[in-house]
Every structure is written in structure tokens, then in C-alpha cells.
């Protein structure tokens, strides 16, 4: 019973014009402390919904989410979230963005600054503290978002395709950086992606989901020692297996459509 996060028989239906749409059906996953878990699946499989429910932004229609032994009821800074879209507050500088969660928690000015500086350093943005969002590149914005999510010391980090809107080269760099940050902070990370390469490179375990309604197809342990090589034989084997699983799921959708 030493699970960090437990998703128990999670289902979610949305009401739409034609009635009800089942987005997620009976998903159960257990996440171990400090585990890096990727959730992958064809688009529209409800993986983002799943993550949003853990964040407390959506509520499950049935089932429960238990984090550190307590049921998740709404959003809280004990779950850090990095969105796919750029989400920096444009009126705040990098430093103020990172400090934001601490300001809400009413941490004193000096302590706030110290902690924020530490995380800015961690994501490699030293020297950019006083920049506004419009002065930053896409990759830098996501680095700030990561620092901002970590600053309140959340017990889990939720990432919703965080590198989806940056270019391929930046994406590779950010992945390496994320692994370094993960190693240093020992956070549990729940990472949603549609990229098989990303999932295999990053995670300890990959949860593959089926298309609508999304349910868990298979959990795959990626037991390749780190640092991983993106082009190694083992990595390719896992990629092949995952790609096969996903295309199988995708083909089911095509038939049903």
C-alpha cells in the first residue's frame, strides 16, 4: 500500500448535444513514489481528461483519485501542473511567475525570492528573471512553467504534453532537462504524451490507452537503464511494441467511425 497515487475505477462522461459521451471508462492505475509514468494513446482517448481530473480541474463521474492516502476533490498546489499551451502570466516577469504559487501561499518576500531563484536555476534560466513572456522562446516558456509548478513543492508533477508546442530539437533538450530535474527533485511525474519516442525515452512505465471511450489497454515497464540512447536496439523494440498497440487502437476507432 505504498502507492503515491491511485486511480480507482475512474470513469468520466461528458454531456453533449446528442446525449452523453463516455470519455473514460473504468481506468485504474497505481503510481509508485518517484515513478515517471507516461500515459499514451490515440488522440481523443481521454488522456488529458485523466490528467485534468488528477489536477482537480475536472471531476470524475465515478471512481476515485487518491493521492498520498487522501482523496482528490479540487485543484490544489500539492499537484503541480504544466499545460501544453503556454500558460505564463504575461503581466509577470519570469521571477514573478515562478513566485506566484508562493505569493498565494503568503510566503514572505525574501524566502519567496530565494526559493524561486533556486528553481529558476534548476531549469537553467538564470539571467532571465526579469524577462516578460514575450521575450522568451517557446522552450524557455515551458521551462518557466516547470519551475513555477515545482516551486510549491507539490507531491506530484502533472504534465500534459508539455513539449507539444516546441520544435523537435528543443523538445529533445527539454526531455533531457526534465530527466535531470526529476532525478534531482525525486518527484513523481505523470506525463501525458502522444509521442511514442518521448514516452520510451522518458518513462519508467508507459500506460497505453484505447480510443474513445478511453480505457487502459496495457501497462508497459520500460526497464532500460538510464541514460538511454534514443536509437538503441532496446529503445526501438519498445517503440515498435507501443506503435503496434496504438495503431491497433486507432484502427478500432476508424472501424467504429
Amino acid at each position, binding site marked *: 500500500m505504498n502507492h503515491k497515487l491511485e486511480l480507482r475505477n475512474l470513469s468520466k462522461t461528458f454531456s453533449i448535444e446528442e446525449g452523453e459521451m463516455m470519455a473514460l471508462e473504468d481506468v485504474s492505475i497505481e503510481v509508485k513514489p518517484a515513478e515517471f509514468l507516461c500515459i499514451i494513446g490515440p488522440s481523443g482517448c481521454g488522456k488529458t481528461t485523466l490528467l485534468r481530473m488528477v489536477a482537480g*480541474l475536472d471531476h470524475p463521474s465515478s471512481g476515485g483519485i487518491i493521492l498520498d492516502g487522501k482523496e482528490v476533490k479540487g485543484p490544489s*498546489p500539492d499537484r503541480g*501542473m504544466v499545460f501544453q499551451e503556454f500558460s505564463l*502570466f504575461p503581466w*509577470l516577469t519570469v521571477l514573478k511567475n515562478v513566485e506566484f504559487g508562493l505569493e498565494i501561499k503568503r510566503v514572505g518576500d525574501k524566502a519567496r525570492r530565494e526559493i524561486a531563484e533556486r528553481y529558476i536555476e534548476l531549469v537553467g534560466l538564470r539571467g532571465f528573471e526579469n524577462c*516578460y513572456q514575450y521575450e522568451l522562446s517557446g522552450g524557455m516558456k515551458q521551462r518557466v512553467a516547470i519551475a513555477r509548478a515545482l516551486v510549491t513543492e507539490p507531491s506530484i508533477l502533472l504534465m500534459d504534453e508539455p513539449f507539444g508546442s516546441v520544435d523537435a530539437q528543443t523538445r529533445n533538450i527539454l526531455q533531457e532537462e526534465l530527466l535531470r530535474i526529476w532525478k534531482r527533485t525525486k518527484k513523481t511525474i505523470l506525463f501525458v504524451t502522444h509521442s511514442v519516442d518521448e514516452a520510451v525515452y522518458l518513462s519508467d512505465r508507459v500506460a497505453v490507452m484505447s480510443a474513445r471511450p478511453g480505457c487502459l489497454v496495457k501497462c508497459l515497464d520500460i526497464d532500460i537503464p538510464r541514460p538511454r540512447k534514443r536509437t538503441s536496439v532496446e529503445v526501438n523494440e519498445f517503440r515498435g511494441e507501443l506503435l503496434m498497440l496504438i495503431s491497433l487502437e486507432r484502427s478500432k476507432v476508424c472501424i467504429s467511425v
Partner: protein
Amino acid sequence: MRLPAKEKWLWLVPLIAVLLLWEFIAGYVIRDPLTLPRFSTVIFSIYILRELVIPDILTSLLHFGIGLALAFAVALPLAIGMGWFRNVFKAIDPIIEILRPIPPLAWIPVAILWIGLTHSAAGFIIFIGAFFPILIDSYTGFRDVPKILLETGKVLGCIGNKKLIKYVAFPYALPSIATGTRVGMGVGWMCVVAAEMFGVGNYGLGFRLFQKFYFLHQMDYVIAYMLILGLVALCVDRVFRYFVEEKLLKWKKGIVK
């Protein structure tokens, strides 16, 4: 904004051209100071009237200040309500839209009956003029806060409307509030003449223009005061823009050039 010297003084050329043209047409084409006095006569009139100009400007600014402060104080809380809560908007919007098209001039009898011939009555007319632009631009700002920023606020600990408004919606709406205020200031200033027309005191640019000069057919004085009305508004707007755009909305620079 740093411009090369040539661009910096570009505005001076057409200005001088227009003034010369005015001088020429008035002096050699129309040749009737009752229809159009010459520019040089008007400038001389300002010199003659120098004892009156400053107290008149100050009195008008007092009326303007009363009206604008009141408009801002009423419009802002209402804008937060209308922009943030959809039901408040639905409930109040029809009332606003009925009142909005009523010209400030039409309120003069009401102002006299309710408030009497006081500075506050003049302020009230200006309030009517300035109120709606401030309200409408401001509630648009509060209404259009991007979902992603609100959700980011939530996961970083802004629980409840009060915190979300304070930390996310208000800073986001600030540029809209500034725009509305600027437009409202313009409309409010245009109401100064009307507000002082019915004689709330013995000073004021509008009072002097309408109650004294016009009845005496002193066209050069009328035009002198019209120019002063324009110049004061220009100064007020420049000061407002300097403080708001250069200081408060620095982060907007990248968004609107």
C-alpha cells in the same frame, strides 16, 4: 520609444502648415473676424484673457475630476461583477443598454433638479459621459480572461473567486480598463462644455465659452477657448498614457506594438 530626430519632429510640419493656412484663409479669403478670426488674433486673445484662463482650466478640471472619479468608482466594481459572473451580466446588461444611448446632454435637467447648480452637477454630466466606455471595456477584460490562465491560477492555489479575480482576472483586464478609461476620459472631457453650460459657477472653460463669449459674439475668444479645451485634453491624455502605458503596462509591449 526612441525615434530618429527626423521622425520625432514630423508632427510639427503639418501643424505649422494648417496654422499658416488658417491665418491665410482668415486674413485674405474670408476677411471677417466674426466668421473666422485669424490665428494670430486668437493667440493674442489668449494673452488678453490670461487672468481668466488658469482659474477656468482649474474649475473645468475639478468638474472633470469629480465626474471621472465617480465614473471609475462605479464602473469598476460593476465591471468585475458583469465580466466575471455571467448571471450578473444577464441581469444588468439590459438596464445598461437602455441608459447608454441617452446623451449626457439629456441628463442636464435631471442634474439640476437632483443636485442643483453645483460643481457636483457638472461632475454628474461628465460622469454620464465617462461611465459607459469605462464599464464596457472593463467588463470585456474580465470576461475574456483565457481559460488556461484561470486554470493555471487554480492549480497554483487561487481557490475561490476572490483570489482568482485579484491575482489573475484583474491583472489580465488592466489593459482593457486602461483603454476604457482613456476613451471615457475623452468622452467626459467633451461633456465639460455641456456640463458648464447651465451655469454651475462663475468659472470653467465651458461656462466662459458658452455663457460669456458666445453671447457677446466674441469669436476670437470662443476659438481661443476651443483651442485651450483641445490642448488641456491633449496634456491630460499624454500624462495618462505616460503613467499607464510606460509604467503599468510594460508587459504589453510585445503584444501590441
